[in-house]
């Protein structure tokens, strides 16, 4: 088992820089998820940790040992790939044992490890089949099994669930969580799916265009995002962003006027430097943080365009001015398109961002 430390890690393809100095410290036994939209550099980072990509700048250490120039095979890592990367011409058993056999590991030990991995993943009956004869979920298990067989210090997962259907994805998610508890090994997991990130991670690393935007526990990111990007990326449906202007300022708070909602005003207490009167700002409100009239600090009238009823919860899409709002309601089955209703915003359940997207606390 081992901690993983990235210090100022840079990746360039030719002159094109795709990772701009990442600093990430992952504790021993931690489950860390790299999340971000496609092209944010998350897979590149993972492949640099794996040793499949050269490191253009900075340092990566695994278990306290600098690994920049260490071959992938000698880094004590195992990796599960998006396409599973099972050898199509080998049986499941041969797939699991291939790496060990090729490196002259004693046969008895290889057998023991393969048996153990098969046991953990309940794939004992599949050992003589070839990848073609397996379902997507079974292939996924074999791919994970192949990683377990290596008995690595660090597990790396590169979008391992993106080829599975929705139901299986939930099932495998739980399974990977269980595996982490059982093995207690450091795991680094790359995904573009914030739900996977929220449910699996001890800590999440949010990446955008080669920069680390924020690192933190899932609920910390949800409650206290560092900027507008993280606020929008974590949470589903996405946070609403309402244009606003600062109209008043006193000791510890500012009052903002919503630009598209008929002069509605919200007084927002802040603890850091206050924005000046007249500053354009953005107010972020999650769909689940719109309250009934009078419950909050600022009421805004909206008109429903489309209502989606999922049973336990309903989403109402409302157009107000140039802004589309998504409102989540638990008991709103009666809402239909065209309805007029009023929602309320609470100051402590809203976030303020400046024009560049940085958080105003």
């Amino acid at each position: 088992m081992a901690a993983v430390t990235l210090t100022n890690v840079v990746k360039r393809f030719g002159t094109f820089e795709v990772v701009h100095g990442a600093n990430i410290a992952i504790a021993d036994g931690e489950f860390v998820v790299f999340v971000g939209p496609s092209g944010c550099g998350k897979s590149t980072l993972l492949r640099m940790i794996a040793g499949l990509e050269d490191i253009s700048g900075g340092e990566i250490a695994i278990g306290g040992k600098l690994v920049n120039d260490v071959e992938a095979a000698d880094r004590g890592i195992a990796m599960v790939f998006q396409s599973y990367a099972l050898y199509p011409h080998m049986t499941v058993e041969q797939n699991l044992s291939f790496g060990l056999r090729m490196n002259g590991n004693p046969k008895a030990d290889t057998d023991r490890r393969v048996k153990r991995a098969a046991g953990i993943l309940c794939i004992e009956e599949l050992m003589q089949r070839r990848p073609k004869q397996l379902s997507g979920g079974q292939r996924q298990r074999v791919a994970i099994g192949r990683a377990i067989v290596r008995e690595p210090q660090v597990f790396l997962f590169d979008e391992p669930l993106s080829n599975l259907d929705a139901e299986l994805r939930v099932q495998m998610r739980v399974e990977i969580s269980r595996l982490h508890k059982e093995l207690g090994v450091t795991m680094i997991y790359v995904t573009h799916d914030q739900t996977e990130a929220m449910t699996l991670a001890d800590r999440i690393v949010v990446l955008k265009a080669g920069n680390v935007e924020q690192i933190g526990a899932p609920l910390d990111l949800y409650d206290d995002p560092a900027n507008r990007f993280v606020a929008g990326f974590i949470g589903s449906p996405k946070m609403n962003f309402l244009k606003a202007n600062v109209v008043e300022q006193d000791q510890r708070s500012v009052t903002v006027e919503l630009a598209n909602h008929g002069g509605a005003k919200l007084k927002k207490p802040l603890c850091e430097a206050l924005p000046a009167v007249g500053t354009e700002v953005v107010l972020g409100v999650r769909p689940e943080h719109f309250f009934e009239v009078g419950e909050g600090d600022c009421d805004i009238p909206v008109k429903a365009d489309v209502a989606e009823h999922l049973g336990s919860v309903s989403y109402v899409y409302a157009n107000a001015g140039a802004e589309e709002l998504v409102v989540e309601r638990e008991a709103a089955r009666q809402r239909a398109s065209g309805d007029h209703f009023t929602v309320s915003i609470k100051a402590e359940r809203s976030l303020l961002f400046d024009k560049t997207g940085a958080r105003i606390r």
Partner: protein
Amino acid sequence: MTSRSQRRLGRSILLHLFLTPLALVWLFPLWMMVVFSTMPDNGIFSPGIELLPHDGFLDNFNNLQRDTNFVGAIGISVSVAVTYTFLSVLLTSMAGWALARYEFLGKGLVVAIIFGTITLPYAVVLIPQFIMVARDFQLANTWIALIVPPLFNSLGVLFMRQAFSMMPAELFDAARVEGVKEWRIFLFVALPLARPMLAALAIILFLASWNNYLWPLLINSQPGAMTAPVALGTLIGLTKVSWGGIMAGAVMLTVPMLIVFVLLQRHFIAGIAAGAVK
């Protein structure tokens, strides 16, 4: 009013009425090769039209063997083709693997040189190759002369490069992470997966070597060192020669390849369709 199926039938008949005579014309030379190979010379040179095989193949073969040591030449041809095919598949798939799967200094240059010279006619290198092999290396009339120079063929490299680069990269990364050495990844992961492509390449290369005429004609012209096509070629145009024998030789060169073609048609066509060999 004609129905859909009637119109389809009409088109189908038209298609077969056109294609059948063309197919027969195309098969005719092959058929005549077989017919000639079974006729005595006085049959071939008689005024009548003979379109069916006789029973003189063995006589013709004996005549051929009298005119030239054809069995020996076939032996050389088979050994050379087998060795050449094995070596060429090995060399070109190794090179194709490197070009498909590694980043390295000078890669652009190597690819540019291979691509840039691929359409140059073989005739350009014929004379220097001949001078080098015959005069400088003193290797005329040896097996090495037949096998080694033709190994330069770069179409195989491009074919295998294509085959390897179509495989998912994660497969090889997975092996790398598991600590499998590069040459073992090549041997135990890449090559087994490339089996259909290797088969196609091997068949095309074997055929090319088996039928190769110009280079063996130039470099191995001594009677004991000739390949079968060269040995047969020396007889064409001689006055006192058995044409039935020549035809028997032609059949012996052609029929095995036709059988291979029928059995392995899929690989054959894959190889040609990919432009594996000029």
